[in-house]
């Protein structure tokens, strides 16, 4: 009995030692000959229908795998873009198309939702990933709308998809008439909340001013039952706060520029003039930047960078 036990422990110890040795050799080999970085950007099968057939009875599980892949893909692209050396910003749409960072995102989301047409979050989050301005997203509002329309075809009871389309037009395209139309359509779906139709009317009359944009994000924040969406709403509300603060700072700096006969080109001059006791910080705690021509802006290192492009008021009919 004792000999058997000793033998068993000996075998386990030997196996463990051999495993450790193998790991050490592999680590040494990787130090000496680093493995190539694999840029896993390829989607080998792009047809959701084909994958639906291949996955047979396990469509939903395959959809989950593609959903995880879509999130990883989006997150990795965002992280890569955040690490890039800061260069002058090209126009967002142009930059998004040229960078190809998010080129497979729609394909992954399309496959996910073909494999599982009821995958609610894939439509709702996916459309945000697609519509967000570059570099936070793919700047493809058209594809976001396409994805949400697909979702509504699969689940005609989901007024939320139509509301999301309205939101995409409101926030990312700044087309308030389209936004109002989609809010109206969402309000007509049985079971939709009563506030959607007034929202459509308000969008048509006041669309584009900061106050109504802020109110929309406030409503999203209050109704969001998904943590990620709530955090996103918080982030946008802080950005509005930063825009308000920049306006207030700018007016004081403009007044200073009048008294001294030209803009203060750096914070040192402003502090010496006693306008502020210290360099003002944005709501995330990062100091604001002052450009040489006396304009205040959020720092590129701030969590709030880049601030949203301010929607313009709807032109009168």
């Amino acid at each position, binding site marked *: 009995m004792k000999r058997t036990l000793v033998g068993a422990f000996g075998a386990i110890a030997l196996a463990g030692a051999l495993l450790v040795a193998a790991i050490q050799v592999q680590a040494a080999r990787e130090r000496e000959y680093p493995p190539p970085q694999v840029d896993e950007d390829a989607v080998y099968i792009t047809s959701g229908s084909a994958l639906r*057939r291949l996955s*047979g*009875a*396990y*469509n*939903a*599980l395959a*959809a*989950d795998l593609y*959903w*995880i892949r879509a*999130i*990883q893909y989006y997150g990795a692209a965002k992280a890569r873009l955040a690490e890039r050396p800061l260069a002058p910003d090209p126009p967002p749409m142009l930059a998004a198309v040229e960078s190809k960072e998010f080129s497979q995102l729609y394909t992954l989301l399309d496959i996910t939702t073909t494999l*599982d047409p*009821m995958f*609610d*979050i894939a439509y709702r*989050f996916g459309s945000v990933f697609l519509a967000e301005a570059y570099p936070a997203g793919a700047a493809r509002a058209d594809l976001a709308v396409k994805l949400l329309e697909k979702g509504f075809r699969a689940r005609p009871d989901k007024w939320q998809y139509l509301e999301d389309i309205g939101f995409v037009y409101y926030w990312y395209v700044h087309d308030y008439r389209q936004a109002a139309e989609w809010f109206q359509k969402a309000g007509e779906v049985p079971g939709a909340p009563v506030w959607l139709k007034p929202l459509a009317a308000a969008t048509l009359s006041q669309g584009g001013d900061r106050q109504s944009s802020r109110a929309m994000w406030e409503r999203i924040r209050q109704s969001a*039952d*998904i*943590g*990620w969406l709530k955090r996103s709403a918080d982030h946008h509300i802080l950005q509005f706060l930063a825009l308000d603060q920049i306006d207030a700072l700018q007016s004081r700096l403009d007044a200073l520029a009048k008294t001294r006969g030209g803009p203060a080109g750096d914070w040192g001059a402003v502090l010496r003039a006693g306008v502020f006791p210290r360099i003002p910080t944005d709501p995330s705690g990062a100091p604001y930047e002052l450009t040489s021509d006396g304009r205040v802006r959020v720092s590129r290192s701030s969590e709030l960078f880049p601030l949203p492009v301010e929607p313009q008021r709807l032109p009168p009919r």
Partner: protein
Amino acid sequence: MKAMAAIAVNVFRESVRDKVLYNLVLFAILMMGASYLLGQLTAGQDVKIIKDLGLSAMSVFGLFIAIFIGIGLVSKEVERRSVYSLLPKPIHRYQLVLGKYSGLTLTLVVNFVIMTIAFYAVLMYTARGTPPNVQRAWDAPALDPALLKAIGLILIELLLVTAIALFFSTFSTPILSAALTFGVFIVGHFSTDLRNFDQVLNSPAAVRIARGLYWVLPNLGQFDVKSQVVHGQPVPIGYMALTAAYAAFYIAMILTMAVFVFSRRDFK
């Protein structure tokens, strides 16, 4: 009846001796690992994915048990020549076939009961760590009793697959039986395509053959309500009853054929 019960219990014991229940350990590890890892990867969809994973794992593990034990139920007895010691005993051949089938059914049911308990335990653990506002966004609650509908239909589907595997094992080798059973399983999940052949073919004869095959081959797609259940869509009791009744008739038909083939085999 007594003889059949004895054979069934013996099959169950044999499957325990063959370490079949080890798959339960694998299932438990898979579920626990999933519950830990998925929260980091899925943007709040961990419960949905744990449900998908759990139901799919039950289906896959059950399928392997059904096929790899099912194909050996009769053919192993023949290969080992133990059938020669069984046949002179006061049991009918139909009792042997039905007893073997009942034994594997018992093995599957025990497996499913334990896997279901583990599945709900993992879901309960995941739900406990989730704030109520996030839970409200789920299509269905974590501990949704409707999951039992999906599990029930998976089990019924596997009982049908077991009957098919047993049927093949009455006249074929284990490898061929496994291949044929897998083939029927795959075709059974695509049988709806046979029904819609008229949309892709212009030949009326081919369409008629395809339509005939659709009705004759087992339609396994109807047992798959995993997606509906996970998304909180209703699965009517009437649907469950009709699907279960279909399975009962089909299993009875396959077992009748298995008994017929086995009764006519010459073991002299």
